[in-house]
């Protein structure tokens, strides 16, 4: 992960400091009480990090994807919830920035996002679609006065109550087929979220992602102009898999570091005595190395395709490539955490030691379910029948 530009390096340093000083200190409380990591988000806002990916021409930092990914990794090492909220927000910002096609409303919006450090949540999941983001039931419905409205039953909206604005997938019109979609950005005041349940989960508790019935009314310029299939294949899906994977890599890396610190302390207490768990940790390290390699190679591949010819991201080969990243990262990150737990033993199983890795394991287990791996395997199974390269 190289970060060439000076401003990018400063951003990574700043985010790392926030991760170490603010996010880490609150992580256990955020997890225990399933509460939003407000102090870390306020610190990120204060540092202007929420507009890191807004192009410089619109007032933002114009940070590279490598830099944003690195920030996700650094936050992931200290507080999974903060990292996932940051990652999801950046996915929305990057998606808008990459597909606004000069639309004045969206340019003005990104300027405002930079000035006010607004936080965007996404409303992509929907009751009744079986987790398939490429189909919608809720539709953008004309209201006669030129405005549009929708009502959407969302089974999860991550940090929905803490976001300023919402990016929502919808059918283009009430008559449109399920796959004929648009993305609409609505601002606070235009949307209301009626809670439909609570968020009391195994892990990723601080993302505060319960279900909602979302109702909104908005102007037609608030529909992203680019074709949805392009937005999804060139940005939303691959960027999600890349940034999520950096978060999961961060979680796994910290679990490994905790196990290593534990072993080092044991070795210092009894120098020269055999330490069987060290061999186990070596296996964990080998798996972590594979995970790191895949995460960084995928980032590189995205960059190459995007720079050479963005349409390459539309191919099935590309869909397979970034699905495979998600599958690999979501399997190996929890596996590294479980390995670290075995190395540390009961001290790691306890929730109150410097070597605790239970939170890491619980948080990392969410990776397989954020877009269920079996759904991705089903997609890949169909695509590999026709795609020519693996």
């Amino acid at each position, binding site marked *: 992960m190289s970060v060439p530009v000076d401003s990018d390096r400063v951003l990574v340093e700043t985010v790392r400091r926030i991760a170490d000083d603010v996010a880490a200190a609150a992580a256990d409380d955020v997890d225990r009480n399933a509460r939003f990591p407000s102090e870390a988000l306020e610190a990120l806002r204060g540092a202007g990090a929420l507009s890191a990916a807004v192009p410089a021409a619109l007032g933002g930092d114009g940070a590279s994807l490598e830099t944003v990914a690195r920030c996700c990794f650094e936050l992931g090492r200290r507080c999974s919830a903060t990292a996932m909220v940051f990652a999801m927000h950046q996915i929305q910002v990057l998606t808008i920035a990459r597909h606004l096609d000069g639309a004045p409303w969206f340019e003005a919006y990104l300027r405002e996002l930079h000035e006010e450090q607004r936080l965007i949540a996404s409303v992509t999941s929907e009751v009744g679609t079986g987790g398939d983001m490429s189909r919608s039931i809720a539709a953008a419905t004309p209201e006669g006065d030129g405005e549009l409205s929708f009502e959407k039953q969302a089974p999860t909206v991550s940090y929905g109550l803490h976001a300023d604005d919402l990016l929502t997938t919808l059918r283009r019109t009430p008559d*449109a087929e*399920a*796959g*004929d979609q648009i993305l609409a950005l609505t601002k606070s005041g235009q949307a209301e979220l009626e809670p439909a349940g609570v968020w009391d989960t195994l892990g990723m508790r601080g993302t505060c992602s319960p279900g909602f019935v979302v109702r909104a009314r908005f102007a037609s310029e608030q529909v992203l102009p680019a074709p949805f*299939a392009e937005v999804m294949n060139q940005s939303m899906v691959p960027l999600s898999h890349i940034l999520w994977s950096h978060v999961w890599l961060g979680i796994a890396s910290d679990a490994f570091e905790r196990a290593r610190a534990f072993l080092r302390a044991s070795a210092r207490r009894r120098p020269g005595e055999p330490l069987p768990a060290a061999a186990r940790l070596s296996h964990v390290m080998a798996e972590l190395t594979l995970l790191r390699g895949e995460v960084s190679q995928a980032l590189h591949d995205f960059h190459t395709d995007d720079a050479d010819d963005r349409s*390459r991201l539309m*191919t099935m080969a590309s869909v397979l490539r970034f699905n495979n990243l998600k599958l690999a990262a979501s399997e190996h990150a929890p596996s590294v955490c479980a390995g670290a737990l075995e190395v540390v033993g009961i001290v790691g199983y306890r929730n109150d030691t410097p070597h605790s890795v239970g939170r890491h394991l619980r948080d990392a287990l969410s990776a397989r379910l954020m877009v269920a791996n079996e759904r991705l395997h089903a997609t890949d199974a*169909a695509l590999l029948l026709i795609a*020519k390269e693996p």
Partner: protein
Amino acid sequence: MNGDSRTVIRSVLREHARLPVDVDTLGDDADLFAAGMTSHASVNLMLALEDAFDVEFPDRMLTRGVFDSVSSIAAAIDELSGDGEPSTAGGAG
């Protein structure tokens, strides 16, 4: 691409695209995905087209845009079976 191939394409569509409407009600340029073709059905469509025309779509052609209308499919088949044989399959690599 002559009218004959379009007829073949339409018959493959009828059999494999699982459209909620009759394919003959759609013009050559109508968006098949907007008409209700799922991405899963589109894979079966591609396989059936490879068989029907005895061609192999290289990875660079395996995008939604190439299969989103009768015309775009015809253009792709045209390119693959035309005299100016394009570079080898797997050109996306």
